[in-house]
């Protein structure tokens, strides 16, 4: 059975070939912080990191993950971005928020002091229908405050 490393923990998955990483995270592991909103890679709500790279888990087949380490929102529980999002009021309904924070975490890992332009470029794949974008930008700009 293939192994999966999620937030530093090793799991064996019994998922059939063809199952997505998202299905395994939510269904098998009960990690429901990663959301499904479109299921076809258009909205970013399902974003996780694979070895630090933001990845859409709804269109990633679980058997292609291999040894790459999966980081979900549950693995970023105490990331400063979690607090900066709340402080800046960067969420309304909150359904897209885990995906936003995972994308932002990958961004600040690559660019520790992102400019507004960096944020607008790197985060454009994460749709927020409530339109919290101005505050998301602020939360990422001030993530280390």
């Amino acid at each position: 059975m293939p192994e999966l490393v999620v937030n530093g923990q090793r799991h064996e998955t019994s998922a059939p070939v063809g199952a997505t990483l998202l299905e395994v995270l939510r269904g098998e592991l009960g990690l429901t912080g990663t959301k499904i909103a479109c299921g076809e890679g258009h909205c970013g709500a399902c974003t996780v990191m694979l070895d630090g790279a933001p990845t859409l888990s709804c269109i990633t087949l679980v058997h292609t993950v291999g040894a790459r380490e999966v980081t979900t929102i549950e693995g970023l529980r105490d990331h400063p971005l979690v607090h900066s999002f709340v402080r800046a009021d960067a969420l309304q309904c909150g359904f897209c928020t885990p995906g936003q924070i995972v994308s932002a975490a990958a961004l600040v890992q690559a660019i520790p002091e992102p400019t507004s332009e960096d944020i607008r470029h790197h985060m454009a794949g994460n749709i927020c229908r409530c339109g919290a974008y101005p505050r998301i930008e602020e939360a990422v700009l001030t993530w280390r405050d």
Partner: protein
Amino acid sequence: MARLIKTEKEVEGRYEETWVVVEEDVLAQWPAGPLEIVGHDAPKKDGLERARGLATYTADVRLNGMLHAAVLRSPYARARVKGLDLEPARSAPGVHAVVGPGDVHVLTDEPSYPGQPVAAVAADTSWQAREALKLIEVEWEELEPLLDPEEAVAREELVEEPRRYERGDLERGLAEADVVVEAEYRTATVLHNSMETHQSICRWLDDDKLEVWISTQYIWGVRDALARQLGLNPDDVRVVCEFMGGGFGSKNGPGDYTYIGAKLAKRSGRPVKCALTRREENTATGNRNATIQRLVAGAKADGTLTALGGEFVNAVGWAGFSPMTGGPMQYLYACDNVRIAEHGAKLNSPPNAAFRAPGFVEGTFGLECLLDELAAQLDVDPLELRRINHLDTDPESRAYSSKNLMECYRLAEPHWERRHEVRARSEGPWKRGVGLASQIWFGGGGPPSYAWVRISKDGRVTVITAMQDIGTGTRTAMAQIAAEELGVPLDRVEVTLGDSARGPYASISAGSSTTPSMGPAVRSAAGDAARQILELAAQRFDKEQRVLSLKGGNIVSQDGGSWPLGQICELLGDGQILGKGARGPNPTGMRVLTFGVQVAEVAVDVETGEVRVERVAAIHDVGRIINPLGARSQVEGGIVQAIGHTLCEERLIDPHTGKVLTPTLDSYRMPTIADVPEIVSEFVDLPDLHLTNLGSKGLGEPPIIPTAAAIANAIRDATGADVRSVPVTREEMLRALREAREREREGVVGAPAA
């Protein structure tokens, strides 16, 4: 004391006069302006839970033995099911129950819009359910759909009787006018696209006892609708929604998926989740209907309006309602002669659903563009034109409970003044300009709504009410109100909500009614608890109760004494202080409305037709602001959605077959973080002295209303072109630019197009 009174109730612009039981609203309003906690920025009480992915949405609820449903939907706009074989699905792997037409009232063998449900399956996994659906054999007879709203109106195919409104005499008003402008405006069908799709889980506890977890804006409405339809006692239907991922008006009722889920759950004896896919969501869960607006306005040379007329066609769809697209024309301006007719076309397209200020968003686009076209003809400043025609009393001679629109206009001045500097920044093909538009809407809420407050020996406060927080920050605002009334820090207050079996009745979270309906009930419950604390304190400290009050976590006496609240609470032991409160009545005979104005700055590339919104200043008058941080978020979110409606969002259907062509999020384009302009929000922030113990109105809807017209008017300011349909695609922008050039060649600057 409870009283039986007749009061007006308004939801989404519709007034109903009903008997309601109300309780006296005994508390005097707080003074205007920021208090200790109310009026100050407060991050969301449940922010960490949501941000960490710990909040349990309906999508995250998993019950033991839960099955998953999939729904077979009509691929055709209009068809007849001539043959249907469900048997292969019944014997498919993992399937526990199958239902078809006749089994559930929402399943049909004569689908009348694409996506209408025909049959459904419940299986162990959603993959098995979807696979089983493919085995169902359907023989379809495709029928000719009716898709053209104008044709439907001509054939009198309407969802309801046309709404007509008239005051004065439109023809006389037009005859008196020095200038008349006439134009046709169009708005496209747009989709809610809440991030969490419509979904619910049904579990039967017995033949007549049902539990439902659902992503909804109104747990009590879902409860009552299910009870009515299924013949159950309302108290035997428990509805739960602790967290929900957006609704914007589309989640006010049970929806076909809940009726289907309830039946599948009954048949299978298992809990059933029916969760829609994004494609189903974008086909069959409602929309903001397209409109066609034929408008006319007449004015004297000094700008005084003499006539306003509108024929409105709402392309409603197969079912739904005909929104008040003429509402802004009816309510916004002083004009003696007004005539409005709204027609709700019944079509073979998916039914509409309320979407954040239905009707007023569309109608404000038409009216406020027309006003600017008039201003150009009259050579009157657009802001001045709106001041000239300001309405001091409601057209039906009802007093406003409060109205600070003139103050909004005053606050808009510095933003409006920027237009000279903005225009001067035009360079090359990029032309820049500034436009504004006014906003009017309801948002007063109403009774009944109730809350309880519980205080324990550790001095912590719990507000209990069976409302829902749809993402607008309700938990936080309610906690602020309770904390203010009880004089305790905000972190001592928690709010428990979202379960019809575990709290008193609470208002719908729609129609900008949550804060004005629930806030006063919470304050009243906190006030009841505060009174009980002071009763105990008076005995304990041997004071007269009237000299005592709660402040900063202390019991304070007028004669200088001060004791920590804990000194009373610790006396409680296992006892608790329980307060209860209710929403009082709305002011009799008064019109409770919200007002505002927005000023937009745009850049238009006149060679490619690209439009960029660079800045929006929003000034709104919604009474007292409870949480300025949350309020700014609401304004920004409304404006972002409005920019989507104005520049990129459009649900397209094939004009011949009626098939929805934009069911995915790459074909239906919504704004991203890269599309957002600078947004400045300001509030008048004066309590409505006639409205409840709080003086607060709702803010969910107002900010989305004027944006489209403000952008279109800024485009005119930048380019001289009149855009008359949204979204302003490049085609529409280039058409408007061409028309403006032709007009200039003919030397009739500012003349209306034929």
